[in-house]
């Protein structure tokens, strides 16, 4: 696997809605900019060999890195695949929508739920939002949130950005009634 660069973003919110946040709200993202394994091959019918060659390694690389950047246990998480202009969104989906990728993060974070995801295609510098949900119960509303990411020079047309995101808490100043109150 050819990795060009690794990007880490950590946001820490101290004030929201004009009021201090009880505990500074932290969200971390780690992204790997990789060569698209299927670049220059035309339409590849069987993506399995490329998945086998990349997905698990990417999960193993990114999962500990994003938890390390968060410096706290993760309560919500998400993932992203941003494909350069010459690739298919299917290429990005292939790398992140497999247990071979996500199980590294679930295991490292003691998580059980599916990872919410963004998949899109765009030029270098495209802005993308990674959705995050609670790591053991995707219906917990307080933890529905997104984090915005931009890498100025990625993805190139023949690259894919693969990212994991983790939050140490729900939204700052979260105060929505739980889902059960409407059932």
């Amino acid at each position, binding site marked *: 696997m*050819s*990795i*060009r*660069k*690794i*990007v*880490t*973003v*950590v*946001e*820490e*919110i*101290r*004030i*929201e809605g004009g009021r*201090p946040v009880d505990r500074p709200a932290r969200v971390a993202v780690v992204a790997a900019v990789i060569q698209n394994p299927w670049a220059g091959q035309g339409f590849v019918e069987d993506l399995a060999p490329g998945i086998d060659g990349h997905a698990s390694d990417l999960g193993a690389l990114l999962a500990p890195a994003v938890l390390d950047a968060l410096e706290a246990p993760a309560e919500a998480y998400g993932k992203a695949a941003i494909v350069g202009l010459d690739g298919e969104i299917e290429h990005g989906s292939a790398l992140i929508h497999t247990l071979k990728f996500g199980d590294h993060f679930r295991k490292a974070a003691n998580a059980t739920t599916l990872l919410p995801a963004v998949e899109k295609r765009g030029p270098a*510098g495209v*802005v993308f939002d990674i959705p995050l949900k609670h790591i053991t119960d995707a219906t917990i509303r307080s933890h529905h949130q997104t984090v*915005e990411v*931009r*890498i*100025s020079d990625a993805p190139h047309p023949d690259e894919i950005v693969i990212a994991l995101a983790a939050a140490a808490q729900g939204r700052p100043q979260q105060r929505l009634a739980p889902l059960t109150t409407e059932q």
Partner: protein
Amino acid sequence: MQERIDHSAESIGLRKLVLYRDVVLTEAGEAPARPARRASVAAVIRNPWVGSGPSADLALEQGRIAPVLAKLLTDRLIASLGGVEEIESFGKAAIVGAAGEIEHAGALIHTPYFGNLVREFLQGESIICFADTRAEAGETLVVPLWHKTRASTRSHYQTISARVSDAPRADEIVVIAAASTGPRPHPRIGDRMTDPVVTTQSLEAVPS
């Protein structure tokens, strides 16, 4: 000195901190001889001078706020890059929101209350290169970096992008410190010591 720095983030209206760090593993298909980590740390604070007009004296607030930012931002930079001794180049920047003056951005980064302290905390000697602008939230600012003790070291001329998705609001200022642990991925454009003498006269002798 340390005792006189107010560390309270609340006192400067700190809304948010954003760390961006990257490491280049391959560039143009090859691994750099010295892979450098680069980072920027951005602090979003309330603009203390919004609505005060061009005759307002900026000294009081700049002396109160800038040292807190210098400590906060350099602490985060040092932690994210593996220690102050790892840091080889540095830069600074500010983005003022639409209701402020560019002078307000300058007040927070161009005086000794910020610059001298950033230099001291990062153990540098050079003047710190900078960028500043007035912009809407989410604007990307390219922050220049150069060597912290020998500014003319050409291998270390580089930039890093800084961006906060929802800042600055009109009444906010984003203040940024940035640093790198090494040179560009494949530096090979010589240096002042290797340059030939280039003048208009010498160039006339070069066939075109």
